[in-house]
């Protein structure tokens, strides 16, 4: 599934934990690890990296360490493209004094422009993260069938316990508001149909997929999908949120942030972003 796994290194206090997490995933997927650091290569940094590397990655057969200079986002994106990285791992930032996490401007730029999938870890651990509760964005978007398929494959690899697929009824307020012209039975029927349609959509996308031992829970909500996803992840204490995005963002997305931007500004848990 992921043959080349990249890790963007920033020599932060969490670097060792990030390397440990990346190594675990490389083992699971039997892939190659590509460590990317953008900055001047100094003997001190080299020896620090080598020390951590020897501690965690000595058993890895296929590893590349790449030192790049220039603008961080641009260099990371170019390296990922050159090396044909399938999955890039990034660390999230923690808000000062709060238990909330967000993506910095470099990471956001990478997420917006990368062609490979991205895994953002909010609290990387040396003993590595268990992705036991996984939430997949099942809202009806063009990329959703792929997101569900990749999310299920990833969940099986990391041996998740429960996979929750959240689907949203689009414009529920408008739909039910216009349905209020009908009788009580018809309104209930409309409500039931809206929910059933969303369940059917997810079930249709699950057809033919090998679910292994995963327990699948389909959940339907009304409201904006990013907000509902964040709320649900917090509610069930999710370990990983899987979602997709295949749009190139522009100035208006910054002025009027769309759902993805809202999520990146306040990550509810680790995030796996699937790209088309």
């Amino acid at each position, binding site marked *: 599934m992921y043959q080349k796994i990249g890790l963007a290194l920033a020599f932060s206090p969490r670097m060792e934990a990030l390397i440990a997490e990346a190594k675990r995933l490389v083992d699971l997927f039997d892939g190659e690890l590509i460590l990317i650091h953008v900055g001047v290569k100094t003997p001190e940094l080299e020896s620090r990296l080598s020390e951590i590397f020897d501690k965690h990655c000595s058993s890895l057969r296929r590893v590349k360490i790449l030192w790049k200079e220039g603008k961080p986002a641009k260099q990371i994106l170019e390296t990922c493209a050159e090396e044909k990285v399938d999955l890039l791992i990034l660390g999230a930032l923690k808000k000062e004094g709060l238990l909330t996490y967000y993506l910095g401007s470099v990471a956001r730029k990478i997420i917006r422009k990368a062609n490979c999938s991205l895994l953002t870890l909010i609290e990387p651990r040396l003993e590595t993260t268990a992705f036991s509760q996984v939430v997949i964005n099942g809202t*009806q978007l063009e990329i959703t069938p792929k997101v569900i398929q990749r999310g299920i494959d990833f969940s099986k690899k990391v041996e998740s316990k429960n996979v929750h697929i959240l689907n949203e*009824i*689009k*414009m*529920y*307020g*408008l*739909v*039910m*508001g*216009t*349905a*209020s*012209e*009908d009788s009580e039975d018809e309104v209930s029927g*409309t409500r039931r149909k809206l929910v059933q*349609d969303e369940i059917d959509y997810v079930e249709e996308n699950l057809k033919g997929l090998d679910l292994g031992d995963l327990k699948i829970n389909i959940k339907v909500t*009304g*409201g*904006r999908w*990013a*907000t509902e996803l964040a709320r649900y992840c917090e509610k069930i204490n999710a370990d990983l949120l899987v979602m997709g995005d295949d*749009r190139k963002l522009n100035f*208006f*997305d910054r*002025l*009027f942030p*769309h*759902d993805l931007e*809202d999520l990146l500004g306040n990550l509810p848990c680790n995030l796996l972003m699937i790209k088309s």
Partner: protein
Amino acid sequence: METLNHKEVINLLLQLASMLIMARVFSEIARKLKQPAVVGEILAGIILGPTILGMLMPDFYASLFSSHSMTNIALDGFVQIAVVLLLFIAGIEVELQVVWSQGKNALKIALASMILPIIAGFVVAYAFPEFLGVNINDRIVASTFFGLAISITALAVVARVLMDLNLFKTKTGLLIIAGAMVVDVVGWIVFSVILSLSESGKEGLGVWPTIGLTLFFTVFMLTGGKGLINRVLPWTNKNLAWPGGLLSLSLAICFLAASFTEFIGIHAIFGAFIIGVALGDSEHLTEKAKEILHQFINNIFAPIFFVSIGLKVNFIEAFDLGVVGVVVIVGLLTKYFGAYLGARFAGLKRNKSMVVGFGLSTRGSMDIILGLIALEYGMVSESLFIGLVILALLSSILSGPLMGWAENLKLSPSSK
């Protein structure tokens, strides 16, 4: 404070009761005939007003609707609040997220569907102002107003038609919805700018300060104002009664914004619309709250407004077949072809573009409000207003069957 006397109170209550009962009866008939409620409500007003009741039972009509001037002022207050709330809910229906998700294609379709009718409407009205009944003293503004009135789409009506046809969640359906949302936003901004240019609308701060303030108000409400709402709403949801606290506060800010735009010289409804957009776009306004607001406004205030149209105009006396014919033909053709061309330009196949064309041609509420304002400002005649109402009725009746027909149309590969 001056109050209504005993007889006036009874009269007002009877007026409201008769309007709501007639609206309910006729919207139920419309529902049985698979037509939008607004069609029934407008017909109820025509029957209850001078056109039918006033002609068949003039004494009864006079005692109900023109015996107490104070009652009529109070009723007008209700109608004003109704129209402000209708625009508020129209704003809440606009979901900027849906518009962004459909991207440039929605914008292309919406703009093409507006530009053609605005230009055609302007040219026709400017060339034949006396025939159409456009105010010759305010010719440019009144002609633009007419063009704008025939370029508007009724979002709620088209949403309902799309649901009935099972097209709501399809790519074409979402494009129509997003396009209608863009039409709403652009239409009301253009409306407020035109209104500030009109001769009769110069009671505010002057043309340029009004236009500047309008644009500032719009941008501020959709950025800073939305941010403020996003901070206040979570607190409201958590600490105040639900949905009571939310309902009363959202209506209060709607009236505040409406009074602000009325103060700066554009109509109150623009403020209500923009605050509706800002509020509706907030992630903290739950879909359940939107549903409650919809039900409350659509079933109480919307019928009062749509019935009141029939009370204001005599649809037989002021009826002019030529004017109605021109309004209906220009309105239907230009809106359809504008949206169709926009959809083709956006890369849609021919039959899907036809669905988009018929979908965006659906009128039924916002265009009538625009027409009524133009009538009240003396920009258009009663005959032209009747033409706009008939255009709204015809397009909302026809759009469902036409969209269904176009959706099922089998086209030869060469014509796609």
